[in-house]
């Protein structure tokens, strides 16, 4: 039995109960009470001095395990993509992934939906769930064969596992490293029309609707894509969708001068699509905001654009970048916290992402206003490949707790 932990004078931000000022008591790794409460005399106390105390971040869809970056960014749980070496399609591998981070980081494996992520044969979803998988995923790629995708969705529905999908038409996106448009044309980069995304989304939505499966589109980045998701939600399709800060803050002009840190998958879109993403964030179409953390060193980034690996290491920047949307009054703080904790937790079937009594004490204490400048070279991540190098931001994690145990 550890000592109770008391947070005093905090700005409590909870996706369920909203914003309030008060105290929070942790007992045995779980939240015991919030508000004006009598503190036990033996409690260890932390004076929050009015700073924000909220559920810690659940980062859905990271490509690497990067403890230092996650902790610096307020992340205590991650949904790990199956695109590992070896692929997360076997119970032994899934179980290892699920256990290696504890107690400092809870890794929730997203098991491969198809064997070897090849997009042809169903993977052992039930066995992998038993080994710790919290969802199944198509990985970095789209499943081109509609018959296979239909079976993936139907089978996952039986197990009540969400299917985390990458929505980009494989044929159109085949060799593309950019979205078709002026920038790609000027740079002479192989490009796919933005239409590759809504085409894929339309099919996956129809299959999800027919099978009744839970579908999570990991990244929706186009205006037409958001329109399809919005309409599907209205029809009652069990769909959620996510995005990363990169597609909310940057358009394809960030690739100018062949900047490989802006080589992402899906590629950066037009300014019109970026505006549509901001609107979808504000109106609630977007459910999940994640980092898509994918550290890539110079051996994979200091190459000609077409030869470089896509991806950005944004785990420790996610919170600071996201707080900007609150400052810009796109959405209230409690909704932002929902997007980075409660909603991804719900996709994965976790009881995290709330300050309600009984929930695990996964908490972050945040100075929402602390200013700092993003510097690629000073990042904690395994690699500093972020398109936001040099950007001044606000918001720092002061303390971080997993199940009541201090991590930072």
């Amino acid at each position, binding site marked *: 039995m550890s000592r109770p932990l008391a947070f005093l004078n905090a700005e409590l931000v909870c996706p369920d109960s909203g914003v309030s000022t008060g105290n929070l008591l942790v007992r045995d790794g779980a939240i015991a009470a919030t508000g004006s409460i009598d503190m036990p005399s033996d409690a260890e106390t932390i004076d929050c001095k009015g700073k924000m105390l909220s559920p810690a971040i659940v980062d859905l869809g990271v490509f690497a395990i990067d403890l230092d970056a996650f902790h610096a960014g307020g992340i205590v749980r991650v949904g790990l993509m199956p695109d590992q070496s070896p692929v997360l399609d076997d119970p032994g591998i899934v179980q290892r992934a699920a256990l290696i981070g504890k107690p400092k980081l809870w890794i929730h494996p997203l098991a491969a939906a198809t064997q070897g992520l090849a997009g042809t044969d169903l993977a052992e979803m039930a066995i992998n769930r038993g080994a710790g998988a919290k969802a199944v995923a198509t990985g970095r790629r789209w499943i081109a064969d509609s018959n296979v995708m239909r079976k993936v969705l139907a089978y996952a529905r039986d197990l009540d596992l969400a299917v985390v999908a990458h929505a980009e038409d494989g044929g159109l996106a085949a060799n593309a490293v950019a979205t*078709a*448009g*002026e920038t*790609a*044309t*000027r*740079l*002479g*980069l*192989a*490009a796919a*029309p933005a239409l590759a995304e809504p085409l894929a989304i339309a099919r996956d939505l129809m299959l999800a609707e027919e099978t009744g499966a839970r579908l999570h589109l990991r990244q929706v980045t186009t205006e037409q894509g958001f329109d399809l998701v919005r309409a599907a939600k209205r029809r009652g399709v069990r769909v959620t969708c996510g995005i990363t800060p990169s597609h909310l803050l940057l358009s394809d002009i960030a690739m100018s*001068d*062949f900047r490989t840190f802006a080589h992402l998958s899906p590629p950066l879109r037009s300014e019109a699509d970026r505006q549509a993403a901001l609107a979808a964030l504000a109106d609630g179409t977007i459910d999940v905001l994640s980092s898509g953390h994918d550290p890539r060193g110079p*051996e994979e980034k*200091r*190459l*000609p*654009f*077409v*030869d470089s690996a896509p991806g950005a290491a944004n785990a420790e920047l996610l919170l600071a970048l996201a707080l900007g949307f609150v400052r810009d009054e796109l959405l209230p703080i409690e909704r932002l916290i929902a997007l980075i904790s409660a909603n991804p937790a719900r996709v994965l079937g976790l009881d995290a992402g709330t300050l309600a009594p009984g929930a695990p004490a996964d908490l972050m204490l945040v100075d929402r206003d602390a200013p700092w400048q993003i510097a690629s070279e000073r990042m904690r991540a395994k690699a500093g490949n972020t398109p936001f190098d040099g950007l001044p931001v606000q918001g720092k994690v002061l303390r971080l707790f997993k199940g009541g145990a201090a991590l930072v």
Partner: protein
Amino acid sequence: MSIFDCALARFRAGGYAIALMSASDHRPGAQIKGGAVFPHRHLTGIGGLQPHEIMFLLDEAEQWVDWNRRHAKSHHPLGGLTQINAFFENSTRTLLSFEIAGKRLGADVVNMHAAQSSVKKGETLIDTAMTLNAMRADVIVIRHMASGAVQLIADKVDCAVLNAGDGSHEHPTQALLDALTIRRRRGSIAGQRVVICGDLLHSRVARSNILALTALAAEVRVCAPSTLMPDAIERMGVTPFTDFDAALDGADVVMMLRLQNERMNGGFIPSTREYHLRYGLTPERLERARPDALIMHPGPMNRGVEITSSVADHPERSAITEQVEMGVAVRMACLDVLTRRARGVEGWA
């Protein structure tokens, strides 16, 4: 412009000092002295050059045209300098042109056929660049199959870097030699209606030409089937056409692009004969252009596909072999200008 005017333009081009005074072309460069006229360390593309900087390179090239035609080639400004031609992609004509240009200027020219070198053994592009740099090259000419690769190398080396073609991005010396050919044959670039027809999607020649010709105030039309037309190409200041006949209407210059073998036969077009039917430059089709329209092709040509032999070999109107000649002069000009700082040329050091 009549046939007579055209001939006059050629005559004037012989005495290039007169052509220099052509009023319609933007050229404050003539008044700027020394290195300030061309402040760039490298030539990685036409994008990023000011119109007067392009004109300065063309003016510089003019003198090398005359010089090449004379037979006593005794002036060796690049004597003692090492020029490395690092070609990561196979090339015969461009490599030869750069080699001759370097040798005419007196440089020690070394050709590195990277397509069959350590690159195949897994060495990264940056490592190759560092190796070339450590060998103390004075100028490196690079061709690479990836867009942006030349800029990547240029950022890592101390000497001047010349782009000899990077992926589908740029091929600046080709655009300069095309511009020089047009200027000499037509008297001016401004106001000329230039039609560029062919595989625009994959063509670095097209991109560099579009940038150069629009910067010099030509009216540029581009023509290709929609499968080979880049998205938003009109944002580069050109008018796109899919109907070649319509594009040719009133053209002063017709520039045909090579159709790569691997793109024929079902990939982007159904067949070469169908391509020829819609986009082949035939004598009948050429009737739509101005009677004195100039015919250009960067080579190597697919005779009978994008161009028929009678058009390619037209004695008065075809400028195809002249383009090759201008190529050497333009490359000499670029090599000379880019090494002036290193050589301590007065006003450039």
